[in-house]
């Protein structure tokens, strides 16, 4: 006597399908119905700062507790120290006030050049061209200190990459690298930082990879580090071979990431776990 059961099951099935179809349609309609035409949707982009614990956020915000400020202080001392055969210091050409808004523009293509450089590259270009001094080694304390000091002057400004049309190709190259699967784990940046941002990796929230606070003081490093160092960290993490520190792909990736974070608040120098 199973026969009478069947129509009932069919009915339940049809009802469920109907409910699903209606709720699906509603879910599709709802965002359009709720958001008034022309209103700005909230920015879905999140700075890495928002994904940190409250204690670390406070450490970053407090200039007397943020360890990166030690390097800013060191950078301020280096700013007025003469270097190279010209005996000029940074303050021989620039005022500190001039540095406001500089860090949010880089990477950029310098006047008279054709390859993009990042802020560290800019500092070293000043040293080799205007001060006639040897370039500072990548990730060296003095270079990071100067970078942190310059970056600090732009804190609070929106990230504003230049509108140089030549940068389009660089950003495209960076975007391709961002989506390139690499390493023994065969992962791309996008797999973690786009597809799985907000999820956890080894108990830590995966950030959206917006470079809003570089150079950062990373507690794990117990030192200040640049965006390059962070990118190398990720490359090693996916067991790819990290490019040498002066390699062009870093600058391309930085250019893409800064463009991706366009308009977000610059928070350098940051603190990260």
């Amino acid at each position, binding site marked *: 006597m199973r026969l009478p059961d069947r129509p009932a099951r069919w009915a339940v099935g049809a009802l469920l399908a109907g409910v699903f179809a209606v709720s699906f349609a509603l879910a599709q309609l709802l965002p359009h119905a709720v958001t008034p035409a022309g209103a700005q949707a909230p920015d879905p982009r999140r700075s890495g700062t928002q994904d940190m614990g409250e204690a670390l956020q406070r450490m970053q915000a407090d200039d*007397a507790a943020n360890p990166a400020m030690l390097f800013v202080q*060191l950078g301020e001392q280096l700013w007025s120290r003469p270097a190279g055969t010209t005996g000029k210091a940074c303050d021989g050409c620039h005022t500190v006030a001039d540095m406001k808004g500089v860090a949010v523009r880089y990477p950029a293509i310098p006047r008279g050049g054709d390859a993009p450089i990042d802020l560290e590259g800019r500092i070293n270009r000043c040293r080799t061209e205007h001060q006639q001094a040897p370039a500072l080694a990548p990730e060296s304390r003095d270079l990071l200190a100067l970078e942190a000091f310059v970056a600090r002057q732009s804190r609070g400004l929106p990230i504003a990459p230049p509108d140089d049309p030549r940068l389009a190709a660089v950003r495209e190259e960076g975007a391709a690298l961002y989506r390139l699967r690499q390493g023994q784990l065969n992962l791309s940046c996008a797999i973690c930082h786009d597809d799985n941002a907000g999820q956890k990796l080894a108990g830590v929230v995966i950030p959206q990879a917006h470079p809003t606070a570089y150079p950062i003081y990373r507690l794990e490093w*117990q030192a200040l580090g640049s965006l390059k160092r962070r990118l190398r960290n990720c490359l090693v993490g996916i067991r790819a071979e990290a490019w040498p520190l002066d390699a062009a792909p870093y600058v391309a990736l930085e250019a893409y990431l800064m463009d991706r974070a366009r308009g977000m608040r610059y928070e350098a120098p940051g603190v990260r776990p």
Partner: protein
Amino acid sequence: MTNVLINAPKAARKGEVIELKALILHPMETGFRPGTNGTIIPRNIIERFVATWNGVEIFSMAFSPAISANPFVSFFAVASESGRITFRWTGDEGFSAEESVAIEVA
């Protein structure tokens, strides 16, 4: 060149409990880590931190190799008299750093 960041109030009421914070740039090399050539990097840590208020010791601390680089110290003191609070760090390889701040106690 030593780099120090001190956070202390410029003024306090007599008897008030104030928080003093001090951050210093220092590698705090443990003496247990091998360098890139395989030999042990010699220990280079801060051994002692002392804070004095008009010459009177109010806080001291012995450091160990397990303390991180660029150590941050925070402690409390009762404001007793106007004058200078001096922070002094001493350690391996003849390391010595001193910084002082003025405080007005009314």
